[in-house]
């Protein structure tokens, strides 16, 4: 069985060379990962990777790099009991009005 992320050697077409500037929210996702992992020792890189590797293959393909990272962080925090689903849902709903 070959995991969706394990793509070394596959023939996946031309390399898209355009690069995008990172948005602030993306940098914050990155920062949260670095802090949670390196500074706080609250999760490991491999937990995060595994959380992303177990995303539904369809979703994985449709969302961007940092969107995947964000879901990965949330999944690990939920698994570890650092946040609850209920809290996450309430805060996400409230965030809809903010920037």
């Amino acid at each position, binding site marked *: 069985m070959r995991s969706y*992320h*394990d*793509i*070394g*050697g*596959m*023939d*996946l*077409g*031309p*390399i*898209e*060379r*355009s*690069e*995008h*500037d*990172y*948005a*602030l*929210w*993306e*940098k*914050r*996702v*990155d*920062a*949260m990962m*670095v*802090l*949670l992992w390196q*500074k*706080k020792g*609250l999760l490991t890189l491999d937990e995060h*990777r595994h959380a*992303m590797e177990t995303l539904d293959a369809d979703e*994985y*393909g*449709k*969302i*961007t*790099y*940092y*969107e995947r990272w*964000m*879901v990965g*962080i*949330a999944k690990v*925090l939920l698994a570890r009991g*650092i*946040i609850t689903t209920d*809290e*996450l849902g309430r*805060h*996400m*709903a*409230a*965030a*809809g009005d903010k*920037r």
Partner: protein
Amino acid sequence: MHDGHHDHEPAGKRDHDAPLTDYQRMEIAVRELLIEKGVVTADEIRRTVEAMDARSPAIGARVVAHAWTDPAFKARLLANGTAACEELGVEMGPTKLVVVENTADTHNMIVCTLCSCYPRMLLGLPPDWYKGRAYRARAVREPRRVLKEFGFNIPDNFNLRVHDSTADMRYMVLPARPAGTDGWSEERLAAIVTRDCMIGVAVPKVQ
């Protein structure tokens, strides 16, 4: 086989006037919760973002330029990449760096087929193509064709060595110092060492 719509990463930037996506809401929610619970502070997040913004390939270029002018440092860099960079005052964090050297008959290229491992402390954040599926898949299988796509025609007599950072190490290519740079200052040398040279999809050009 072409992997359809999964190859091309959707653009990461969102229009300022567009409504927040679920993922942006998730970022706000998780950040607020972590701050509320005292896990992180807003200040820590801000400072981490600033530190990330301050990092660019110029850091790696400085290390390369120094290795070009100081053979003993170069030997130390190849033996223990992390320790040598720390000598130059580069903050390496938990990075375990392996530096691989381009020589008269060997060219090196870096990839992370499984995700996007990258020597961020030396090069900043990786470019989209490095993290994208096409490069990750093809760099180990047909590296010479990939280099051609990058406009780099590797000479026929060079052996090509690809490094797949699958576990705990991070990699940087030490490009070969080009001819025509005798007597150059380290600053001038560093200016011709681009990010792509240190990933291994390009070589420094004398301008």
